[in-house]
C-alpha cells in the first residue's frame, strides 16, 4: 500500500469534513443578524451550534497538523507563501471564537451589536478566504525553484474570486438549512425561505465555477484519465439539485444532508483533480509540490497511519454521539432559561 496515497486521501477527507462541519457554523454566523430579528433570536442561532462549533473547528487544526506531519514541505511553503491571507484567516477565527463566548456576557445593545457584527465579519472572511485559497491552489501557485512570485492581490484573480464566491454561497446555503433544521417557528421558517432564495445564485456560481475550472485549471485531466472518478462531481451536482428538490418537498433535514454531500463532493472534485499534486505550480510543473516530493519519510508516514487509524474512528464515534446528545431543536424558551447558554 502506498502510504503517500493513503495520506493524500486522508488530507482530502480532513479538509472536506472540515468544510462540511464548519461550513454551517460559518454560514449561520454570516446570517444570524439577518435571520434573528430580536436579540433572543440571534442567541438561538448562536446556541444552535454552541455545543459543536469548537469541535468542528478542530478538523481544521487537524488538517493543518496532518499536512505538517505527512507533507512538511507543503506545509512549510503553503503557509509561508500564503502568509497574509492565512493571517487574515487566523484573525477572523480568533475573533469568531471569542465573539460567541463574549457576546451575551453583557447586556448593553452596543456591546451585543458590536459582537454581532464581529460574528458576521469573522464568518464571512474565512469562507471567502478558504475559497480564494483553494481556487488558487487548484489553478496552481506562481512558484518555481527560486521561490514564490505571487501576492495577495494576485490571489484575487477572477478564478480565485469565483471560487471564493462559491465557498461563501455554499456555506450560506448550508448555514440557512442548519438554522431551519435546528430552530422552530418564525426563525426556522425565515431560514428555510432564505435557503430557497439563496439556492438560485448558488447554482449560478456553481455552474460558473465548474465551467471556469475547465479553463483555469488542469483539474479535469485526471477525470479524462480515469472517468470513473466523474461520479464525485456528478454526486456533487446531484446533491446540489437535491437540496432544492428536498426543500420543495418540505424536508429541511434531508435538504441539509444533501447540502453536506454537496460540500463533500465539491471539495472531493477539486482534490481528486489535484492528484498527485498538493499544490501545483503554475510556472513550471517540476516545481509542483506533490505527495512524493514533499512528504515525510516512510517511517513517519507509518507511525502517523497507525495513529490516524487508531484514533480517528474513536473521534468519529464520539462526534456522532455528541450530535445525538444535542439532537432536536433549540428554542427561544430553552435559551432564555439556560444560564449556561451563549
Amino acid at each position, binding site marked *: 500500500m502506498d502510504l503517500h496515497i493513503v495520506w493524500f486521501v486522508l488530507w482530502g477527507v480532513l479538509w472536506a469534513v472540515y468544510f462540511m462541519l464548519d461550513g454551517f457554523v460559518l454560514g449561520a454566523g454570516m446570517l444570524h443578524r439577518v435571520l434573528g430579528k430580536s436579540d433572543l433570536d440571534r442567541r438561538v442561532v448562536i446556541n444552535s451550534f454552541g*455545543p459543536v462549533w469548537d469541535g468542528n473547528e478542530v478538523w*481544521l487544526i487537524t488538517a493543518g497538523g496532518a499536512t505538517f506531519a505527512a507533507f512538511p514541505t507543503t506545509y512549510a511553503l503553503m503557509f509561508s507563501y500564503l502568509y497574509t491571507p492565512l493571517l487574515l484567516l487566523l484573525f477572523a477565527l480568533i475573533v469568531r471564537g471569542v465573539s460567541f463566548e463574549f457576546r451575551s456576557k453583557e447586556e448593553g445593545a452596543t456591546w451585543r451589536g458590536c459582537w454581532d457584527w464581529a460574528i458576521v465579519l469573522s464568518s464571512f472572511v474565512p469562507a471567502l478566504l478558504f475559497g480564494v485559497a483553494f481556487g488558487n491552489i487548484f489553478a496552481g501557485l506562481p512558484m518555481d525553484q527560486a521561490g514564490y512570485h505571487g501576492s495577495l492581490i494576485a490571489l484575487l484573480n477572477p478564478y480565485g474570486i469565483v471560487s471564493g464566491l462559491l465557498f461563501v454561497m455554499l456555506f450560506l446555503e448550508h448555514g440557512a438549512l442548519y438554522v431551519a433544521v435546528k430552530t422552530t417557528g418564525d426563525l426556522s421558517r425565515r431560514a428555510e425561505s432564505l435557503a430557497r432564495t439563496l439556492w438560485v445564485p448558488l447554482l449560478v456560481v456553481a455552474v460558473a465555477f465548474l465551467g471556469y475550472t475547465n479553463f483555469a485549471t488542469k483539474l479535469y485531466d485526471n477525470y479524462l484519465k480515469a472517468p470513473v472518478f466523474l461520479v464525485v462531481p456528478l454526486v456533487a451536482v446531484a446533491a446540489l439539485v437535491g437540496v432544492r428538490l428536498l426543500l420543495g418537498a418540505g424536508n429541511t433535514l434531508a435538504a441539509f444532508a444533501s447540502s453536506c454531500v454537496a460540500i463533500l463532493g465539491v471539495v472531493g472534485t477539486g482534490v481528486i483533480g489535484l492528484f498527485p499534486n498538493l499544490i501545483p505550480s503554475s510556472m513550471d510543473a517540476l516545481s509542483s509540490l506533490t505527495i512524493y516530493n514533499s512528504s515525510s519519510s516512510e517511517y513517519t508516514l507509518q507511525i502517523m497511519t497507525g495513529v490516524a487509524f487508531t484514533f480517528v474512528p474513536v473521534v468519529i464515534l464520539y462526534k456522532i454521539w455528541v450530535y445525538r446528545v*444535542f439532537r432536536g431543536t433549540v428554542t427561544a424558551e430553552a435559551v432564555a432559561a439556560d444560564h449556561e447558554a451563549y
Partner: protein
Amino acid sequence: MDVLTLSRLQFAITSMFHFIFVPLTLGLSVLVAMMETRYVMTGNEMYKRMTKFWGKLFLINFALGVVTGITMEFQFGMNWAEYSRYVGDIFGAPLAIEATVAFFMESVFIGVWAFGWDKVGKRFHAVSIWLVALATNLSGLWILLANGWMQHPVGYVLRNGRAEMVDFMALITNPFGLLKFGHQIVSGYTVAGFFVMGISAYHLLKARNREFFKASFGMAAVFALAASIMVGVIGDFHAADVAKTQPAKFAAMEAVWNSCNNAPMHLIAFPDEKNECNLVTALPVPGLLSFLAFHDTNAQIRGITSFPKDERPPVLPVFLSFRLMVGLGTLFILLSAAALFLSKNGLLEKYPLFLKLLVLCIPLPYIANQLGWIVSEVGRQPWIVYGIMKTSDAVSKSLELSQVIGSLLGFTLLYGLLGFVDIYLLAKFARKGPEETHVGASNAFRN
C-alpha cells in the same frame, strides 16, 4: 529590525499571550472536575454551585486559550518555513497527534459539559469535565514532547537534507520533554490554586457567601500546596537534566562564567555580560551548585566562556528569570502552606491582611510561568533545535519585511483588545457571587 527579529518578537508575543490562558485551563479544569465529583458523590448542592461558578470563569478563560492556540500551529509554517521543512518529519508528528487525541476530545466534551447540564446524566456530566481535563493535560504532554525535542533532539537522523524520525519511542520517552511536562502541569495547577484562593479571599473579605468561598478556598489550598511542592521537586530534576543536556543554558541560569569543580551557589549574584564576569557575588554555599546539578559536590560545571561566542545564550535575562522563578516558587509553597493551615483551623477570617495578600498574589504564578518559558526558550538560543539548527536559519525565506510588520501590529492590537475584554469579563464574573452569575440568559426577555 529584520524579518528574523520581528518573527522572533511575534512568536514571543503570541506564545506568551497564549500562555496567559493555558496554565489556568490546565489547573482549573482539574479543580472544577474535583468540585463536580464532590457534588455527584455527596449530592450537596453547594458543590454544584461551586462547579458552575468556577466553571463560568473557566469557560471565559478557555475561549481565549483555544483561539490563540491556532496561531501557534500556523506560525511554524508562516514564519518558520525553513524550520518546518527541515524538522517537519519528526516535529509534525506530535502536533498532529495532539490535535487527533487531545483537541478533539477537549472541544467535544467542553461542549457537552457547558451545554449538557440537562442533556446527559449527572454522572456523565462529571465524566465529561474529567475528559476535558484529561484532554487539556494530554495536549500539554504532546506539545511539550514537541518542545522537548527542540530542546534535546532524540530519535532522528540527518538524511535527505533534513532531520528524519527513526525512533518514535525515543521521541515520546524523551526525558527532557517528560520532565518539562511534569513541571509545567503542576505549574498550571499552582496558577489555578492561587486563582481560586485569591478570588475566594476577595469574597471572604467582603463576608459574602462565606460557606461557599471557605469551601472553595479549602480545596484550592490543598491543591496549591501539593502542586507548588511538586513544581519544586520536578523542577529540581528538570534543572539537573538541563545541566547534562544543555550546559550552556545551565551556565546562563546560574551565571557561571568559568568552568569549575565543586561549584558554589551564590545566593546573591549579578552578571555583567560585557565583561564576562559577575558584578557582585556574595553568600556562597560551597559545592551546592555541583551537587544540585550532578548530585556530587565535586562535579564540574561548565562555564559560559567555555562555549564559542556564537553558541552562547543571552545571560542576563535567563539568569534573572530563573532566579525570580525559583524565588516565586518558594514563596508559593510558603503561602499555600500558611493558607492551608489557616483554612483547616477555621482561622482565615481572623487574618484579613493575609486574605488581602492572597488577592494581590493572583498574578504571581502567572508571572512565574512566563519566567519559566523565558528561561527555557531564551536559554536555548542561538539554537532553535539544540545543536542542530540555529534560529537564524529557520525563518521563512519568502517573507517580506512589510508582511511581518503588518502581522506583528495586527497581533498586538487584536490580542491587546481581546485580552483586555477577557480580563474585564473574568473580573466581572469573579466579583459577582455564585448566585449572580446568570447574566444574559435570565435577562434576555427584558431587552
